[in-house]
């Protein structure tokens, strides 16, 4: 275990990383920001405050959210490979959001919360389904079965999205297509506020449950004997995870592996304590996605990559590395 002092030093390093990521992300883009023009030039100000800053903040809150959910799901299922994408939660949310688009509920800004709710329901149904499929008679969840169930849910959900696109009219299909590619591109702060209404309650629930998740990550039965209400904790984590993932997917599309890469990075720095892991994953996740989005915006000059492609490129190898190390992580 780390001493309090070295924990504090590392927390400051993480905060520095967050600030650096924020500044880099703010500065980089199709048009790099010239700070000298900020005082006088109206166009530069508009660029910064209505385009760049909202997008950077969007990256920060989505990154923080996905990393938090990943860390919480890993603890709940005692599975290092669990995260919104691998458990099919993102897939379910995507299917729900597509359905909302196809029904025309995404056409107006005023209709946006309905997309959140559809995505939330989709995420919630898939997390319950995955859990049901993977659990055995004695309520123990088999780690391999959990991931397989998640993969299958993702495939089914993806097929559902394709079917909906096929059946929807042309403009809505195009809308869905643009959205599935995934982007953090937003204009103004209105959407951010709307998202926070859904995200903040989810964050608070998970952070409140940090100690219960810490005990559950070690062992379910001993956690129960120490006074953790396992059922209630499970229900609240499902609810919060669905709320968070639904909101993130509905606005930014599927951005995979943030919930995998970030918590494991934090573990390398801070150890296994879930009470630390949850809040610090939020900080690291915010920085990680802001950086990934900067790369997405600038790597290919004028054309922009979907940020999900960047996170998958970073996260896929980490997943495989963990899977290989999984021989050590007991029987997968």
């Amino acid at each position, binding site marked *: *275990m780390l001493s309090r002092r070295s924990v504090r030093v590392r927390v400051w390093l993480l905060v520095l990383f967050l600030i650096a990521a924020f500044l880099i992300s703010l500065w980089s883009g199709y048009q790099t920001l010239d700070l000298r023009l900020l005082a006088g030039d109206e166009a530069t100000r508009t660029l910064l405050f209505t385009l760049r800053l909202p997008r950077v903040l969007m990256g920060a809150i989505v990154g923080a959210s996905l990393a938090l959910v990943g860390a919480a799901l*890993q603890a709940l299922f*005692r*599975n*290092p490979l669990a995260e919104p994408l691998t458990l099919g939660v993102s897939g379910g949310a995507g299917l729900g959001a597509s359905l909302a688009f196809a029904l025309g509920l995404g056409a107006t800004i005023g209709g946006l919360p309905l997309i959140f709710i559809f995505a939330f329901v989709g995420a919630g149904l898939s997390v319950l389904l995955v859990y049901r499929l993977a659990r055995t*008679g*004695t309520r*123990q969840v088999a*780690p391999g079965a959990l991931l397989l169930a998640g993969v299958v849910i993702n495939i089914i959900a993806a097929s559902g999205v394709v079917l909906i696109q096929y059946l929807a009219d042309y403009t809505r299909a195009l809308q869905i297509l643009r959205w599935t590619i995934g982007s953090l591109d937003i204009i103004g702060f209105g959407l951010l506020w709307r998202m926070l209404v859904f995200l903040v309650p989810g964050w608070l629930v998970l952070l*409140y449950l*940090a*100690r219960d998740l*810490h*005990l559950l*990550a*070690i*062992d379910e*039965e*001993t956690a*129960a*004997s*120490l*006074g*953790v*209400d396992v059922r209630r904790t499970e229900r609240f984590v499902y609810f919060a995870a669905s709320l968070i993932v639904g909101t993130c997917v509905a606005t930014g599309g599927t951005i995979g592996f943030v919930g995998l890469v970030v918590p494991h990075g934090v*573990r390398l720095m801070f*150890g*296994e*304590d879930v*009470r630390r892991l949850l809040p610090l994953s939020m900080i690291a996740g915010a920085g990680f996605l802001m950086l990934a989005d900067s790369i997405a915006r600038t790597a290919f000059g004028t054309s922009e990559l979907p940020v999900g492609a960047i996170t998958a490129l970073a996260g896929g190898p980490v997943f495989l590395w963990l899977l290989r190390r999984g021989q*050590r*992580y*007991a029987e997968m």
Partner: protein
Amino acid sequence: MNHAPTSGTHHSSFITHPLLQAHDVHFAYEGTKREVVRGASLEIQKGKLVALIGANGSGKSTLVRLLAGIRQAQRGTITLEGQSFDVIDARTRAARLGYVPQTTNTVFPFTALEVVLTGRSPYTNRFRFENRRDIEIAHDALRAVEAAHLAARSVTELSGGERQLVYLARALAQQASLLLLDEPAAALDLKHRAGLMRHLRRVRDERGLAALVVMHDLSLLDPTFDEILGMRDGRIIARGTPSEVLRDATLAEIFDDAGVRARRFDNRTFVWSEAG
């Protein structure tokens, strides 16, 4: 059970409740009709080491889970020092009862000290980390089971026997008055089994702890345990001192096996089966 009159505290102070008492407890796992525990009753007194023996599937582990509060009995009452489980909140219960599971499937490399420190959670605020005193208590618990050297090691790298010690230390760090151990000796070799018995005797003698221990190796019972409970088909059908229970006829009934033999030799009782 008989409830002591609650009016005069002077009066009730003369009535000593058993530490833990179960009366006519029934339990079936969800989705199943068959009761695994069918009217089990038992008492555990302060500072006594009690072994729970019985054939596979007789309901021992389930009964221990009920007593640890991991599962709720569907019928019957369980009382802790005269107070029903229904009225004790989970953390108060956790501060009195320490549970050690048969096996643990910790996949994340938590250090042994981190695991032992979770035993302090019934005493600490949900948003606080353990303080210096908690850490001292955890180290002390590890020392009590001769596992101080494991503190910084990660539990995923320990052998089954070492991990068992860490979980025993966690239960000790809980400063409970009763330990509930589910087959702690199952994964241990001869030497570690003997070591475990030594640790149990020591925590009884030095800390005044009571323990209910599910045991399969009946030859370990005689010099260590104060009392033995025999379980069959979800009920406690025999109870007594080792010399009372470890007899051919009693054991034959508990295990439904006429071939069980118990013989005293060298101040111990050795038990084996000649069935098959």
